[in-house]
């Protein structure tokens, strides 16, 4: 069978990758169709440029550093990548079948794995071209300062991996489904389910699962002296217990871990300023998502009377800073990233199973050639 990926000798391995390279070259020549492609890339470049310009004013970058700008551009590349990539990769295999070039490739000495991997790498490289086009603006943001090497390295790497996952899902679905239009739409739906569906699910599920929380409030009264003399004293009032319901987002924070934007934000090392506020968009999103891990306080006691200090309680309000929340929560990005990588690998694997020849089963209504 031609599905075996296991290659015994180094010569076989060289042969295997030579074939994959051949398919990559063929695929890039096929799909990256000259003028239209460069126009698209040019439009993308202009849009990122405009976004950068707006961010320049919006984040007051000259004073506050390029962190906000850098992280927003990275997100923007992921957004446009997930808008463009499915259209370019979602018909890689079934589109070839429609135009009648799949079978003529399969009767050659190219194996199904070489074919699918070649198409995947080509789709990934195509998506990475967007990252490359955004590079000047990313560099500009870095030059503005306050962007750590860790943030640059991790976010770029994770973005590249996420673009690869989108390419793998697109190519995989194009091998699984017969009709190019359907596989492109399905790819969009999968990407949308991860990017938009997860926050919706998170929000709705959290709101649907309410817990009853009690808040006990012990107030104080100012008792005037009975005979009207000046001076009086604070007395404690009877505790007032109020019940109300709170949404339990903490049950569902794992859903958000599957969101590619969250993965990207959570993976970047958090950088905070002196007040404990995040320096970039990554940090804000990561803090937001991580704070969802903590259950709401179900039995809060507000005891104004406890120490008899009354309203003059000198103790400061101990609000947690964003940095403190970030640090006492668990990171989730590697779970999300692993899920994504498994999803992409699974799609490719399934595509190979479906595309392999000599074919045992054919999807109804399809032809091999």
């Amino acid at each position, binding site marked *: *069978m*031609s599905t075996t990926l296991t290659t015994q000798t180094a010569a076989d391995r060289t*042969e295997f990758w*030579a*074939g994959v390279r*051949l398919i990559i070259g*063929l695929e890039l*020549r*096929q799909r990256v*169709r*000259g003028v239209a492609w460069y126009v698209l890339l040019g439009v993308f470049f202009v849009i990122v440029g405009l976004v950068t310009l707006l961010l320049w004013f919006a984040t007051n970058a000259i004073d506050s550093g390029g962190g906000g700008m850098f992280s927003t551009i990275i997100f923007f590349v992921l957004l446009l990548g997930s808008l463009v990539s499915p259209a370019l990769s979602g018909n890689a295999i079934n589109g070839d079948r429609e*135009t*009648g*070039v*799949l*079978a*003529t*490739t*399969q*009767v*050659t*000495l*190219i194996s199904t794995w070489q074919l699918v991997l070649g198409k995947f790498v080509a789709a990934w490289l195509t998506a990475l071209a967007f990252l490359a086009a955004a590079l000047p603006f990313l560099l500009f943001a870095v030059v503005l300062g306050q962007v750590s090497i860790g943030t640059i390295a991790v976010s770029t790497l994770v973005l590249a991996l996420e673009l690869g996952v989108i390419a793998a899902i697109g190519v995989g679905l194009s091998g699984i489904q017969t009709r190019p239009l359907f596989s492109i739409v399905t790819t969009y739906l999968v990407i949308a389910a991860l990017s938009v569906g997860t926050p919706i699910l998170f929000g709705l599920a959290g709101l649907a699962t309410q817990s009853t929380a009690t808040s006990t409030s012990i107030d104080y009264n100012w008792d005037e002296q009975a005979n009207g003399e000046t001076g009086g004293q604070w007395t404690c009032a009877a505790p007032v217990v109020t019940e109300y319901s709170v949404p339990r987002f903490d049950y569902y924070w794992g859903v958000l871990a599957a969101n590619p934007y969250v993965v990207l934000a959570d993976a970047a090392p958090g950088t905070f300023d002196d007040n404990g506020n995040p320096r970039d968009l990554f940090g804000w999103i990561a803090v937001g998502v991580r704070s969802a891990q903590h259950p709401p306080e179900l039995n809060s006691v507000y005891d104004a009377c406890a120490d008899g200090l009354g309203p003059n309680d000198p103790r400061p309000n101990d609000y947690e800073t964003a940095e403190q929340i970030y640090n006492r929560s668990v990171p989730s990005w590697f779970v999300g990233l692993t899920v994504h990588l498994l999803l992409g690998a699974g799609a490719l694997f399934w595509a190979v199973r479906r595309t392999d*020849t*000599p*074919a*045992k089963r*054919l999807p*109804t209504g399809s*032809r*091999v*050639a």
Partner: protein
Amino acid sequence: MGISVTGVSRSFGAVHAVRDASLEVPPGSVTGLIGPNGSGKTTLLLMLATLLQPDAGSIRIAGFDPIDDTTQVRARMGWMPDVLGAWPTLTVRQAIETTGRLYRMPQQQAARRTEELLAITGLTALAGQPTRVLSRGQKQRLSLARALVHDPAVLLLDEPASGLDPAARADLRALVRRLAGEGTAILVSSHVLSELDEMADAAVYMSAGVTASAEQVARAQSSLRQWRVRALDRAVLASAIAAIGMPAERVALDNVGALLSFADEAEAAAALGRLVGAGAAISDFGPAVGVMEHTFLDLNRDVNRPQPLPTEGGGAA
């Protein structure tokens, strides 16, 4: 060696595309695969081309099993599909060369072979054109060039002549004969039966997924066959036919002349002599259809009738 198929079947769900196909194509010969639309020719060729697994039966291509030794078969087999696809943005030259590279040819060897094939298929003038601007006939030639790129020992051609102009057909015929002369085993499917008559050494008839047995073919070939007769004067011809005592059911008069049915050539020759003797000035006398077409039509007569397939005649159903 060559192609050897025994008892192969393949169904798609409830549709039995190929029920029972057996054939042999020895090296150095051309066999025509003949059958009506939907008779399973293309499905059979897909199984031979290592793209589809048979449900039952065995296939040997150049001595190898397409399922167990897929790579060995692919290295020795060239397939020209009935669906014409070409990478649209590549030029003709690039398309052939890329195919060669997909067969693991080194760059230079692929380039050299490409120039050869461009010349053989008459595409040299179009070598720099993108494949999407090619006409149907030109695509057909490109498809043939791709099938030949690795100099295969077994060649499968699915409707190679459709869309070709007469000159290109003659070229194709010459090329196929030459390849066979060099030892290639060639299986050609076609509807253009007159053409296969000239090109093929042998024919395999297929209908409703079953290849006809030798006895069936012999019986079909010995059935009554029509001969076209023309004379200078149609009225004289008609009276001459009546005079020599041809049975009425074997005679069909039309505005050109007459169609007479004979069991064999001897009977036809005898009738010609008697017609001339009866005073008809015969200007044209010959079989109305070629041998293959006659066999094809006769074998399919049973299938096309609304009644069920005949069960007599051995391994038919």
